[in-house]
């Protein structure tokens, strides 16, 4: 799959509304990617603890793509109604456990395989699609509008 294509199994994010983000990343680009996610997440209505969650999830997904998913990827951030979606795609060989990756609690002290597990703990909703041509993970965070 070429980088300018959306992975076929991925969900096409609708045209950017205000505050959305569509950014490619590769090795060495995680610091600026995190800065962009923090800024856009804040503009999309997240703050404090939930903004931290988004930042952590975006980082772990992007670093998985860099380390195990072909070295680069694409991150999209958007809001529809009260839900913020963060989608990270890569064009690697897919996750070893496919869509079940990160379901089991890692053993204490294990250094690998914790990223996706953490993402599953923090997301309100998660979709994992993984195959031989790439991986696409979408996490959703509900914006608390009661405050």
């Amino acid at each position: 799959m070429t980088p300018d294509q959306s992975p076929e199994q991925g969900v096409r994010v609708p045209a950017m509304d205000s505050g959305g983000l569509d950014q490619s990343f590769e090795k060495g680009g995680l610091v600026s990617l995190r800065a962009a996610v923090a800024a856009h997440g804040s503009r999309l209505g997240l703050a404090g603890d939930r903004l931290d969650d988004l930042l952590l999830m975006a980082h772990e997904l992007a670093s998985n793509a860099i380390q195990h998913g072909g070295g680069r990827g694409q991150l999209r951030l958007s809001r529809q109604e009260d839900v913020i979606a963060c989608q990270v795609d890569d064009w690697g060989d897919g996750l070893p456990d496919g869509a079940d990756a990160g379901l089991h609690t890692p053993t204490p002290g294990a250094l690998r395989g914790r990223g996706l597990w953490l993402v599953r703990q923090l997301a309100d909703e998660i979709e994992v699609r993984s195959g031989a041509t790439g991986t696409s993970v979408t996490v959703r965070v509900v914006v608390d509008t009661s405050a």
Partner: protein
Amino acid sequence: MATPVSVDELGPGDHACLTFSDQEERLDIVTAFVQVGLGQGQRLVCFTEALPPDRLAAEFVERGVPVDEYRQSGQLCVRSSDDSWLAGGCFTADKMLELLGREVELARRDGYAGLRVTADMGWATRPVTGVEQLVVFESAVNQLFADQRVTTICQYDRHQFDPVTLATAADVHPCAVAATVYHEDPVLRVCRQHSPAGVRVAGEIDYTRADVLRHAFAEAVRIDGNVHANLADLRFMDVASAGVIIQAALGLGGGRRMTVICQPLVHKVMKLVGMDGVPQMTVLVVDSDA
């Protein structure tokens, strides 16, 4: 100026320059200087400028050095620049050297094992008469103290002094003292913390720098008793880096403990990575915008 040394390498006769840009780091080094001196039965004189004397003493206490009894006994003396070298409103190298000479005499008379002096030189950026004698004074200190059991650290804030003055001041000192830095770039700084002993990590850290973290904490686990992980200024930490710290804590045996000071994001990652299952670990959460 020679390669900077760590504060615990300073000994009698050393006249060191500390140029700093981070208050935390300055206070860490100065506290270590005070702590070592008190432990060796030396007299300590601290001239303070940025902080009032009681605030500086409180900073020592906060860093685990119970200074109150030493202040009462006279072993530790904390004085403001206004009450010491600027008393009378102007600075002369002679007046200052006389003042230090008296301190040397007092320490000897009272039977102390030596004298340690440290001074925040920030007063020299104020419009003070005679400040041009600063370099004369610093040079004279070298001669005066060379054969005495006196150890000195002069503190220069990089934000306060212009580069030329800083370079001149640094040149006059026979040695420089600095934090032991494991890693430094615009995003991340990892350095050794002296008091309490451990590691200080500031900025953002992720798996790309996990090796630096592993190295720093391995050293702390090897040489310190309890390990203090000062992550108060760490804005981001990923799962891989949190794993390194948890691993280090798990390696502490014999009742040794690790205390972690961190912001809410870091606390969250540490919890998810299994901190609660590590009995050696205690966490204190600080406000992220502190």
